[in-house]
């Protein structure tokens, strides 16, 4: 019998592997040449793979969900079983002939260069600065030329009509773009006239170019490579190992963690908190809360105090964004919830406007719905500061990673009874006492939060927790 291979096809020069997403035919099915027998997926592409010959599908060697290298045999077709004897070549599908010579597309290796690369080749020499800015009418403009003008077609048309060099118009749009409003205001304010005079002088106005906000978009290739791209190194698999692909949440978590640490220089500071005062408030309010059906955990106390203290420390409720600092106008607390496996961080929005019981109930509600996967998108977004509780599983302290887009995170260690030295306020005598205490760690982005700021924040938090107000 002639049994022919069905290999994982070469779907592109740079595509080394493919995942079998679905078998459209099963072992024993008759297949006709060119009839789709399986679907594969690579990257963002789904592709149908046709049978290379007519016959019977006699063996499937790669199961759905498995990823194999190009050329790996995924199935065998017995051509004797079919009506027509197909040519015995084990042809990669679709179509056997080898890829033609790599086309001359030099940009292919450098995505950044391609981003700005002009498609039609003419106009190789960069035009003089003055000419470049005034969008040559009708000429072949490259993507790069257009980007330099930081403007839309409408704005370029207005500029041309008024003989304005767009580069001399201050842009207030994103990335320094010149909006329609900007250019109209510029013309209105007589800037156009001044501009025309300046343009008449030959080389002098060239100096007008620097110090433009457009510079903000220049490091984007660096941004792309450094702040967006995450590649996890690969390691050899040993005999007894099992290998599983990461699911989406794990992949995103892995990527987020790498980027978060890559961007923010992490520093951690610690403080020990005494829970005696909190315990007093808890016992005093226990009956009342029970009657209300309120659920106020230790975490609720911490969240309440943090939300108040954050109002006094705007840098800890901020984030660096480009060359700016965004001070968040709301105190939105991300509360890490263990899903085992996985983690979700629902957000208590405007926590500083909620009372202790309100925060307690909100945390219970969010955590419950997080575990049931019933959170609304808005409920997991917009955190300005986060709290994680590694202590809930008994660990003494953690060094949490600061979520992207925030400047700090608090980690609360296990609350344990410890022997501590206490001083009698009346006579100054020292003695040993048993107190409930926990270590707190503050992870902070050292670009924006200085060590002293962190220390002041933690001291203030300690003060508030150890002298917890009765009426919170």
């Amino acid at each position, binding site marked *: 019998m002639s049994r022919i291979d069905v290999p994982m096809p070469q779907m592109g020069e740079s595509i080394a592997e493919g995942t079998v997403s679905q078998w459209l035919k099963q072992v024993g099915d008759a297949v006709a040449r060119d009839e789709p027998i399986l679907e594969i997926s690579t990257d963002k592409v789904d592709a149908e793979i046709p049978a290379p010959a007519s016959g019977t599908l006699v063996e499937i060697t790669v199961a759905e969900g498995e990823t194999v290298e190009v050329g790996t045999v995924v199935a065998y077709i017995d051509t004797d079983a079919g009506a027509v004897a197909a040519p015995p070549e084990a042809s990669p599908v679709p179509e056997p002939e080898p890829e033609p010579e790599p086309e001359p597309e030099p940009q292919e290796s450098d995505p950044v260069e391609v981003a700005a690369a002009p498609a039609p080749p003419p106009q190789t020499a960069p035009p003089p600065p003055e000419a470049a800015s005034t969008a040559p009418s009708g000429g072949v403009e490259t993507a790069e030329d257009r980007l330099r003008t930081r403007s839309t*077609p409408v704005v370029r048309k207005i500029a041309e009509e008024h003989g304005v060099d767009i580069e001399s118009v201050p842009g207030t749009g994103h990335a320094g773009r010149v909006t329609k409003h900007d250019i109209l205001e510029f013309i209105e304010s007589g800037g156009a006239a001044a501009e025309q005079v300046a343009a008449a002088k030959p080389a002098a106005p060239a100096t007008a170019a620097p110090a433009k906000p457009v510079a903000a978009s220049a490091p984007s290739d660096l941004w792309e490579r450094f702040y967006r791209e995450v590649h996890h190194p690969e390691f050899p698999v040993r005999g007894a190992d099992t290998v599983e692909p990461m699911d989406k949440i794990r992949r995103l978590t892995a990527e987020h963690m790498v980027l978060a640490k890559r961007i923010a220089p992490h520093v951690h500071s610690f403080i020990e908190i005494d829970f005696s005062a909190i315990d007093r408030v808890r016992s005093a309010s226990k009956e009342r809360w029970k009657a209300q059906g309120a659920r106020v955990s230790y975490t609720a106390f911490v969240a309440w105090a943090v939300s108040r203290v954050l109002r006094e420390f705007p840098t800890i409720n901020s984030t660096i964004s480009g060359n700016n600092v965004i001070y968040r106008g709301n105190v939105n607390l991300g509360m890490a919830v263990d899903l085992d496996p996985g983690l979700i961080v629902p957000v208590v929005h405007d926590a500083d406007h909620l009372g202790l019981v309100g925060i307690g109930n909100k945390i219970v509600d969010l955590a419950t719905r997080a575990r049931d996967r019933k959170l609304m998108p*808005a409920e997991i977004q917009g955190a300005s500061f986060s709290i994680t509780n590694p202590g809930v599983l008994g660990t003494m302290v953690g060094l949490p990673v600061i979520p992207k887009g925030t400047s700090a995170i608090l980690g609360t260690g296990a609350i344990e009874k410890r022997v501590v030295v206490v001083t009698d306020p009346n006579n100054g005598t020292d003695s040993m006492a048993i107190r409930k205490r926990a270590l707190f760690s503050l992870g902070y982005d050292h670009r924006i939060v200085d060590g002293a700021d962190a220390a002041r924040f933690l001291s203030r938090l300690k003060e508030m927790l150890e002298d917890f107000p009765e009426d919170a």
Partner: protein
Amino acid sequence: MGTVPYGEALELQAELVAQRRRGEIPDTLLLLEHPHVITLGSSSDPQHVLLDEAERERRGIELFQAGRGGDVTYHGPGQLVAYPILDLKPDRKDLHRYLRDLERVLIDVAAEYGIEAVRSEAGTGVWTALGKLAAIGIRVSSGWITSHGIALNVRSDLSYFETIVPCGIPDRDVSSLERELEEDAPELAEVSQRFVEHFARVFGHETIVG
């Protein structure tokens, strides 16, 4: 083509793919808008749709298994959707090159509006500093015939993307021409025109627009 429900667009594409394979039609580019719809790619986990069914229906968002590559995405009014039905034989049989070409078209269209958009090693699509501007997900049917394609946010209501943000992970933000340009944002029809121009240039042939 105006606004076309997702299900109809799927059927139309299947029909055009068959016709293209038989050589009955030339390479064809479909340009349209969809009503609110969430579509799943082959690698999507349905759990990444954050709305439960009742809420989704209440908000009038359809849900489809799209039969294309890529993960979950959202389509809706104000978004330019382009589905090229091309025969990649004989000289364009490289799916990565095809994806890169689609990205190139999108980058050039963004540049028309002074927006610097780039591709990212991290995934197919086109990003600006503010977020993902356009998504790409394609299918290649037997005989190297393409379908599905790109979705460029022009004036999309970006809040709809929040319905598909994966749990707890602040995913990359989404952007649109409107978010980039604010009141200067162009109309969909104008962007379509520019898309066609750049598409024809990058793909180097006359294109029938359906």
